[in-house]
């Protein structure tokens, strides 16, 4: 690991300049900030918090490896939607085939896109908005609260399968897009959620996504987040999950695209017996930077969290993951396990994995580990000694490495979807052949 901290934003960008850019963005977008989606009081409070927080400082451990240089020049304001014909011509080709049995919701440049979306009784803008408490860890989530131009607000009262596609295109005018998903699960219900990020707003735009899910007591969520943005996309991504008593939340997160992507994720296990698992895969080539900051808060007794993250970086790419687990005083009998592993394709790539664990109570089982290295030579030789060529051996071993994070994913169709996505991103036929069918 060559851990050289670099400034998230170049020195030319001062907090004052950032503040001015935000104020300008509000002026530019004022007419678009619909109070029906989020009340003005929420928007202005969030903007004030964002202004007060400013940019991350150079030594801020929460932001150390995020590449935010684009904030100095890329658009921060949402713009009026393109004409319908123009928009659909750009968006429709981006939409992946439908998942059968799923209700589909499509966002085009931050707004719900009706031509691609299904009607659903679960969608209801009259519901109280889900605006979680955010901190500096989630500082760009405040921008979403302030600038959201489209919201999918879902109340899940009965078992449901939902596919949300966040699609983005550069559009006629350079722009920031602010897609937003809010989900509330009633007690004892189930949700299978597939969330996909496709397209790009280009190097002059930003994508700022916010996802918040409240899982009621005894509910179960199987959530696949699948970021497959184009290679020039710039993503700020804020995810906040809250779990009531005995809720089970299984999150699969694939970071497979973008130029720069930063995910700030918080899982709050506030109900006794709540369980959270993360199966994470991050792949980066070229000059891609993928930064993850994960916070898992154990706030009640007998809560459980497991995290398995596998990252592969090649070329001059950089992957970082800071994963902090806090087990509070009110969380005796809790379990936590973290396994973060990185695989470096060559000397120019960088992976920084930082598991952190803080325990404030007794009777806790917690483990954490992080390793980064090259392909294991013994495994490679074993395959070569069977006549497998070097390129295939590498593909097999990279697949085996990632598969460690995906093997336990349920239900089977989610696992197959995640494995297919990872295999495609690896770009190897070998991996595609190894995907276990649903």
């Amino acid at each position, binding site marked *: 690991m060559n851990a050289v901290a670099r400034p998230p934003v170049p020195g030319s960008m001062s907090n004052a300049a950032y503040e001015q850019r935000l104020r300008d963005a509000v002026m530019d977008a004022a007419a678009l900030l619909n109070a029906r989606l989020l009340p003005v009081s929420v928007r202005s409070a969030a903007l004030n918090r964002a202004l007060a927080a400013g940019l991350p400082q150079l030594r801020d451990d929460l932001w150390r490896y995020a590449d935010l240089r684009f904030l100095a020049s890329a658009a921060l304001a949402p713009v009026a939607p393109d004409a319908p014909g123009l928009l659909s011509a750009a968006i429709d080709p981006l939409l992946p085939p439908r998942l059968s049995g799923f209700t589909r919701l499509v966002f085009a440049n931050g707004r719900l896109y009706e031509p691609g979306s299904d009607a659903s009784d679960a969608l209801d803008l009259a519901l109280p908005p889900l605006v979680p408490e955010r901190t500096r860890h989630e500082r760009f989530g405040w921008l979403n609260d302030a600038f959201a131009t489209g919201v999918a607000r879902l109340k899940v009262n009965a078992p449901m399968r939902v596919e949300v596609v966040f699609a983005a295109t550069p559009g006629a005018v350079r722009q920031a897009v602010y897609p937003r998903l809010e989900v509330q699960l009633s007690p004892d219900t189930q949700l299978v959620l597939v969330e996909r990020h496709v397209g790009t707003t280009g190097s002059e735009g930003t994508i700022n996504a916010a996802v918040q899910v409240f899982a009621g007591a005894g509910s179960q969520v199987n959530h696949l987040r699948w970021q497959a943005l184009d290679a020039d996309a710039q993503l700020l991504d804020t995810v906040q999950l809250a779990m009531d008593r005995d809720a089970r939340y299984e999150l699969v997160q694939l970071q497979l695209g973008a130029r720069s992507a930063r995910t700030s994720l918080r899982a709050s296990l506030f109900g006794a017996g709540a369980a959270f698992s993360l199966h994470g895969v991050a792949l980066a080539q070229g000059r891609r930077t993928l930064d993850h900051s994960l916070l898992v808060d154990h706030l009640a007794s007998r809560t459980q969290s497991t995290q398995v993250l596998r990252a592969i970086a090649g070329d001059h790419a950089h992957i970082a993951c800071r994963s902090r687990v806090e087990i509070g005083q009110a969380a005796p009998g809790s379990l936590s396990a973290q396994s973060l592993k990185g695989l470096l394709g060559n000397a120019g790539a960088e992976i920084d994995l930082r598991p952190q664990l803080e325990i404030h109570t007794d009777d806790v089982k917690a483990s954490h580990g992080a390793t980064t290295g090259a392909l294991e030579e013994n495994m490679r030789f*074993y395959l*070569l000694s069977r*006549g497998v060529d*070097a390129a295939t051996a590498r593909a097999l071993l990279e*697949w085996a490495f990632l598969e460690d994070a995906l093997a336990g994913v349920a239900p089977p169709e989610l696992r197959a979807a995640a494995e297919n996505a990872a295999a495609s991103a690896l770009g190897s036929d070998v991996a595609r052949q*190894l995907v276990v069918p649903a």
Partner: protein
Amino acid sequence: MSTPILSIQDLHVKVGEREVLRGINLELPAGQVHAIMGPNGSGKSSLSHVLAGKPGYTVTRGSVNYKGTDLLALPAEERARAGLFLGFQYPVEIPGVNNAYLLRAALNAGRRQRSEPEIDAFDFLTLVKERMALMKMDESFLSRGVNEGFSGGEKKRNEILQMLVLQPQLAVLDETDSGLDIDALKVVATGINSLRSPERAILLVTHYQRLLDHVTPDAVHVLAGGRIVKSGGAELARELEQRGYDWLLEAA
């Protein structure tokens, strides 16, 4: 005697600065099984690794001729495709890559080399299941990760299964008998014996004589200090079992 499948001449090998093989000479004719025996640290595993092309070994002198070609000039994967098989002393676990996939990839790599078409899925399964029955392995094994969670005995059986599917012309089995109980030893021996044929040759690298009770070698070579210090027939193995290696080391 026909042309040997394997001919090793004055082979010197270093690992780093340490010389691990110091002038090996060996002729292995088609149709024969030779055993390489010797105490720990004598260079047995080094010899197996060098033949299979494992990185980290530097040949400083000598030659290895395999079926008329310079074996040392080939990378590991080409040696395998040319019909050389190494049975590992410590087979590697590769979770995420299933046994069926690896077997088929390995089989097809060899077939492509020989300009044969790839095996179809049905023929492949028929072949593998037949060999698995011989090795007394459960069919569920095929969908498991390569050696993942296998016991020591299962790993060794898997090595022999791979060998039986690939049908190599030269099999080098590195301490395949270590860690096996008597039943597993018999199964493994049955597998090895089933491969014996006039076209093939087998090099059995072993510390103990007990595998040789079940697979009778045509010749036994004792390796010590990186050299072959004595060669003989099957009876030499029994003598070693009774007398140990010390008398040879003193003589050498």
